[in-house]
C-alpha cells in the first residue's frame, strides 16, 4: 500500500464526479482527499484524488476511470513525481494570542488571514505533515476549528493538457 495521486482530466458534465467515485466505492476503497477545479482549457475540469492502495489496484482504478465516457484521460503518480500543496485553516480564540503563539506562527511560516473580536484565523499551506504538525501544537491553544483542503497537484513530467485533449 502506497499513497498515489490520481489525476482525472474530464469534460465538465453533471454527475461526472459521481461516476468517478462509484469506481472507488465498488471496490470498497476510501478516497483520502479529492479536489476538483477548472483546467487551463475552458470546459475541461481536472479532478485530483489522493488514494492509498497497491499499485496494481490503482492501475485498475485508473483504467476504469478512463473508461468513463466523458473522462478524457486519467493518470496515477507516486508522491515524488508530483508537486503538490494543501491549505489548512486554524481558528484560535483571541484570548490565546500571546508571545508563544506569535513565535509558532513565525516558525511555521503561517499567516493570520482574518482577525475578529473573538478569534483569529491562521493559514498554512504545505504538505500534510507540515499542516499536521501545526495542528498538534495549536490543539494546546484551544483550537476552535480546523479545516484542511485536498491536495492540489501538478505532475512533474512535461505533458501538457493540450497534448492530452487534442
Amino acid at each position, binding site marked *: 500500500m502506497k499513497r498515489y495521486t490520481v489525476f482525472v482530466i*474530464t*469534460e465538465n458534465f*453533471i*454527475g461526472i464526479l*459521481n*461516476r468517478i467515485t*462509484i469506481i472507488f466505492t*465498488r471496490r470498497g476503497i476510501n478516497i483520502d482527499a479529492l479536489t476538483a477545479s477548472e483546467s487551463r482549457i475552458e470546459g475541461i475540469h481536472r479532478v485530483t484524488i489522493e488514494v492509498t492502495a497497491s499499485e496494481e489496484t490503482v*492501475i*485498475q482504478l485508473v*483504467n*476504469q476511470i*478512463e*473508461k468513463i*465516457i*466523458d*473522462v*478524457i484521460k486519467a493518470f496515477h503518480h507516486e508522491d515524488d513525481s508530483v508537486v503538490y500543496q494543501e491549505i489548512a485553516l486554524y481558528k484560535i480564540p483571541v484570548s490565546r494570542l500571546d508571545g508563544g503563539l506569535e513565535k509558532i506562527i513565525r516558525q511555521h511560516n503561517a499567516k493570520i488571514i482574518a482577525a475578529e473580536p473573538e478569534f483569529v484565523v491562521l493559514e498554512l499551506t504545505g504538505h500534510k505533515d507540515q499542516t499536521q504538525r501545526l495542528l498538534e501544537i495549536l490543539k494546546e491553544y484551544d483550537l476552535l476549528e480546523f479545516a484542511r483542503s485536498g491536495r492540489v497537484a501538478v505532475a512533474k513530467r512535461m505533458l501538457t493538457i493540450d497534448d492530452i*485533449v*487534442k
Partner: protein
Amino acid sequence: MKDSKIRGADIVVRSLIAEQANIIFGYPGGAIMPVYDALYDYHDQVRHVLTRHEQGAIHAAQGYARVSGKVGVCIATSGPGATNLITGLADAQIDSTPLVCITGQVAAHLLGTDAFQETDILGMSMSCTKWNIQVRRVEDIAPAIAKGFYIAKSGRPGPVLIDITKNAQVDFGDFNYIKCEGFRSYKTQIPVEKSAIQEAAFLINMAERPYLLFGQGVILGKAEQELKAFLEKSGIPAASTLLGSGALSQDHPNYVGKLGMHGNYAPNVLTNHCDVLIAVGMRFDDRVTGDLKRYAKQAKIIHLELDPAEIDKIVKCEVAVLGNSKESLSLLKEAVNQKSHPEWMARFRELEEEENTVVINNDLKPIKAGLTMGEVIHQINHYKADDAVLVTDVGQHQMIAWRYFNYKKTRTQVTSGGLGTMGFALPAALGAQLHDYSKQVICVVGDGGIQMTIQELGTIMQTKAPVKIVLLNNNFLGMVRQWQQMFFEKRYSFTELDNPDFIKIAEAYSIKAQKVTERADLKEAIEDMFIHDGPFFLEVVVEKEDNVFPMIATGCSVEEIRLS
C-alpha cells in the same frame, strides 16, 4: 417561425427513426405520455411493442440486440417505470449489449422535489450504464439521442439511458438530426500495435501446446471469419465461453468444447496443460477460471481485447494485443506459421471420450425412467435449423441447454451470462423473434425463472411471435437445490416449488400448449412444436433431482473439474 418547430416528443420519435430503430419495446405512463402520443403518428415508420412489464421491455430489447447486432431500444415512464429497467441495464452492462433506453421524467421545475413518480434514475443507473444523461431542454433531445446511439454501439457496446423531462417533451424545437460520429473524450478504436502482434506470433510459433479461448468479443467485433481463418492456419484447438458460443461452428475440427464451471471436461482440464494460452474477446470471469491461483500458471498468456480495462484485471498476460478482434486476429493470422498439433489435439479428444462415457451418454440416452434435460435438448437438435436461436434463462436448464445445443451459427446464443438474471429468457426470446419472424427462436426456461416474467406470454400472444417455449420443469429451483445437495448437506431451504398448471396458463394466453411426462411422447411433441405455425408452449416434466455435471466447485481449479 413556430410552424417549422415540432414537439420534443416528436423529436424523440423522429430521432429514433433516424437511427433506424425499427422496433421499440416499452410501457407508457404519465411522464412519457407525450412520446406515446407522438408514436401514434409514426406507427407506420416505427413499431412499438407493448410488453407487460418494463423489465420485459428491456429484456426484449436485449434479445433483439443480441441476435440482430443492432441497438435495442426501450421506453419507460418515470419512477417505477424507470426503476423496473435497472435489472436489464445491469444485465446489458455486464454482457456488453447495446441498448438505448428512454425514460420519461417529471418536469424540470419539479426535479428534486419528490414529485409524483419522480425518481433519481440518473443517479440510480449510473453504475449500470455505459453512459446516461438527463435532458431538460427540447433542443438537447436530438443531440443526446445521437450521442446515445453512438456510445451504445461503438467500442465495447453497452446500455445507455436517456432521461427526458416532461417539459422538454412538450416544448417545441427545431429538428435537424445530425448523427454522432465521435467526440474528444471517447476513443472507440485503438489501432493494433504491430509489435504486440509480433510478440504474440513469436510465442505462438514457438508453442507446442497452444490453446485458444474465445468469448463474445469475437461476435461483437464481427470477427467470426477471422477467428476461423486464424485457427485453420495455426492448427490451434479452440474452446468457447458461454457468450462466445456460436462464434465458431461446433462442427469445426478445431473446436474442442466449452469452458467454465459447467463446461466440458477437456477444455477446462487442459487449460492447465497448454504452454501458450490465447484469450480472444473474453474477460476471465470467475465462472471460467475457477481458483485463480491455480489457473493456467504454466502458460504464457496472450490477451486479445478491445477494452484496456480488461487487461491484467483478472489474469496477468505476457502479451496484450489491444484492439478490435477482427483486426488483431487477421494480423495475427498473417504473422503465425501454418501448423498442426495432432498429438495435442488428440488429448482433447481423449478427455472428451471420458466425458462422453461418464456424463454425456447418461444425459442424452438415459436408462433411468425420469426424463433428463439433456435428452430434451438432444431431441431439439434433430429438428432445429442451423441458424435457430437458443434463448435460455438462468440455472440448471441454462447450463444443460448450453452444453448440448449444437451451435452452428453466430448470434444464435442469447442468455444472461454475467448477471445471471432469472426471468430473462421469455422476454428476450420475444425480442429475438420479433427481429425475424421467419427464424426459429427456441426459449428454454425453468419453472422458477419463467414465473419471474411469465406475464410476457401476453406480449407473445398479442404479437403472435412464433416463439417455441420449452419449459423444463423439475418443480425445484434446480441449481440452488444442486448446491444445497452438494455443499449444504441436502438442506433444501426454500427451493421446492408448488407450481401452477402451466398448460392452463399458456392456453389462457391462447398459446398452443402440450405437456410431456413420458419419454415415449417427447420426440413427437418436439416435432409438433416445430411444425406448429405460431407460438408453442411445451412443458417437459423432468427428473426432480438431477445434477449438472461436469462441475468446477467454488474454490477448485479448472483441473479439479468433477465428472460426477
